[in-house]
């Protein structure tokens, strides 16, 4: 069936002055049949280029792309049996929705008009747009155009759907609605899907697995929760999760971490994990920081801090805390929305030892991840 394999795929662009720019560097990832993989990363990380290489719109400079075990690298886009949904929808302005959706079938198959019509009708019903079929794109709202664009991909019934930030032109409310709907449709059709986005919320909620790219290199491929709880390196840890994980540079002294502003006592498991490393980065997610009123830290996992700024978000508050009485260079903790915390207040911040992450200060590689056994069983907040 349609397993999609990217094997050490590379893309090198040659600049005007003859210098090479590596856009995608040895990306290897396997996408199982029916799987929904999200490629995520900051802009310029090579995710769109990767997708376009799968589509055949860019030629890979190296590596192999296999679809169902067969290499598709040399094939023209139209021969690859893939369908793509574009960020701008790329609907044909002079055609009605029906014609837009039929176009691919007319061009790439010799189905009869009746068969094509039936497929278009089915897809339109699946997307809940039968009444829009005879309108042209200019007469449709953004969300409706989005559905037609999806329909155009669906009627092709391809081996693989490729989606290039398809929701980024929608307003926030419609976006979350379409997010759910896309997932439902993908589950219904059970078609292998590669989805590109820069929005980590989309990545976390939609993907069976996510592949995090940065600087053209694959940082981590795994389920959303894996990437969240067991980030492979500092980049992934910082990129996934909102607000971002807090990082503190520190050195290891026996079973203690010595940072500029504080010292932190490590548990045995962590001590073993950082053995041999000298400089490490301590990471802790804002929701794991426990904030209690008070001024006297009870042990070496607690610190006296002062509240710098509070950003209320309704369900929770993001609290910016500075060490000691010094509000510069604060870190973030999230606390329940009903709790009263005010700027200038003195509080105790606790970094629970089972919630910390440790990364190698030079390579950024993860040395120690939080333990999951004693973690809060509730779904992680994103």
């Amino acid at each position, binding site marked *: 069936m349609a397993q999609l394999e990217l094997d050490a795929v590379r893309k090198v662009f040659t600049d005007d002055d003859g210098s090479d720019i590596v856009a995608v560097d040895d990306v290897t990832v396997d996408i199982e049949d029916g799987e929904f993989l999200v490629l995520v990363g900051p802009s310029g990380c090579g995710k769109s280029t990767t997708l376009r290489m799968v589509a055949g719109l860019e030629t890979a400079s190296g590596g192999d792309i296999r679809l169902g075990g067969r290499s598709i690298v040399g094939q*023209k886009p139209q*021969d690859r049996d893939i369908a793509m949904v574009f960020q701008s929808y790329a609907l044909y302005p002079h055609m009605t929705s029906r014609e837009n959706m039929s176009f691919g079938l007319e061009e*790439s198959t*010799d189905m009869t008009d009746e068969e094509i019509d039936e497929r278009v009708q089915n*897809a339109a019903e699946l997307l809940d747009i039968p009444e829009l079929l005879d309108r042209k794109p200019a007469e449709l709202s953004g969300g409706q155009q989005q559905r037609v664009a999806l329909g155009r991909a669906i009627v092709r019934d391809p081996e693989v759907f490729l989606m290039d930030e398809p929701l980024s032109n929608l307003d926030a409310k419609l976006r979350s609605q379409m997010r759910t709907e896309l997932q439902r449709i993908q589950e219904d059709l*059970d078609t292998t899907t590669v989805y590109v986005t820069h929005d980590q919320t989309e990545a976390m909620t939609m993907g069976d697995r996510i592949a995090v790219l940065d600087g053209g290199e694959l940082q981590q491929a795994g389920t959303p929760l894996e990437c969240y709880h067991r980030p492979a390196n500092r980049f992934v840890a910082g990129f996934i999760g909102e607000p971002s994980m807090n990082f503190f540079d520190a050195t290891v002294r026996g079973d203690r971490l010595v940072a500029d502003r504080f010292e932190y006592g490590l548990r045995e498991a962590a001590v073993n994990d950082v053995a041999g490393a000298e400089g490490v980065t301590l990471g802790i997610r804002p929701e794991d920081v426990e904030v209690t009123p008070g001024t006297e830290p009870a042990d070496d996992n607690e610190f006296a801090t002062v509240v710098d700024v509070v950003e209320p978000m309704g369900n929770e508050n993001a609290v910016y805390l500075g060490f000691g009485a010094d509000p510069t260079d604060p870190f973030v903790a999230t606390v329940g929305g009903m709790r009263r915390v005010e700027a200038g207040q003195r509080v105790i911040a606790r970094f629970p030892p089972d919630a910390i992450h440790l990364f190698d200060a030079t390579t950024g590689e993860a040395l120690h991840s939080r333990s999951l056994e004693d973690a809060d069983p509730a779904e992680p907040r994103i």
Partner: protein
Amino acid sequence: MREFLSTARSRLRRAAGRDAGSDGDAERADGDGDSALATDGGTAEAGADVAPAGGTDGLLDRLDDRFGEDFTESAPFWLPPFLLVGLFVYGAIAWNFVISLTEYKGFVGPDYSDLDLDMYVRAVGDSAVIDATVNTFVLVVAFTIVALVIGMLLAILVDQKIRFENTFRTIYLLPMSLSFVVTAQFWLWMYNFNNGVVNIALGAFGIGPVDWIGNPQIVLWAVVFALVWQFSGYTMVVYLAGLRAIPTEHYEAAKVDGASTAKMYWRVIVPQLKGSTISAAIVLMVFALKAFDFLYSLVSGYRPPNGADILATKMVREAYSTNNWAYASAIAIVLFLMALSIIGPYLYYEYDKGNL
């Protein structure tokens, strides 16, 4: 949705395969046609591109590898027009150059065995050619500058959020839609010594009458004036597009900074019209070089009024009135080089901006 998968997919593959096959065929057919054309015109650039002739799919692939992936697939679109232009424009210029090296005149065909630069030597020594060159230069420069200035003023006027903007614009551009032959008739009548509007209007101020067409000192300027009348509307349209592309914030910022309207245009707006000026100037110069039609129609003949002979008229006269073909070709090459000295830098400028 899934049950029609397998059949559709196999059909799809078949269709794709067939398509690719027929593509290849078509290209080979095209290639054959091209090679025939190329031997015909003998142009160098055609020869390089006809490699698909009699080629195999492997050759097509290799061509694509060398030139880029859509090269052969897109060739049926751009190659025929390119070859047609290559043959008629560049082939003809090359041929023209060769003819200019012969002694071809009269009704016996050119003799290509004896090539020399005699015709150029003769042209350099021919005072009529020198005069025509000077006249061409004056016409091109004066016409271009005046048309640019008038066009810019028109554009600024029309850009003042006026009412009936479309009507005014249409009227100013109207002469541009007319043939040189037609406008020549109008201006011949305008410049008429006894009954022309120009002399009657000037007569009201006690000036004239002036013999606009007959006086060799004046006739070139009269022609420039008529051409400006015909083409300043064009300049206006180009500048108007340029003005509309400037964000309104620039006008507002200049106003807030306390600039007067004149100062604002001179210091903020006009400098931003550099691109429009360059493209308009190029097109105007080319129009001026083509002013042959106008001068021919003024007199209904090959010999323009004294003092208004330009290279374009001189060349056609030498060729079709006195049958000095080789000499005419040499003059044509001089004219071509003048045009090239204008468009060469322009094309480089466009290339530099990444527009080519």
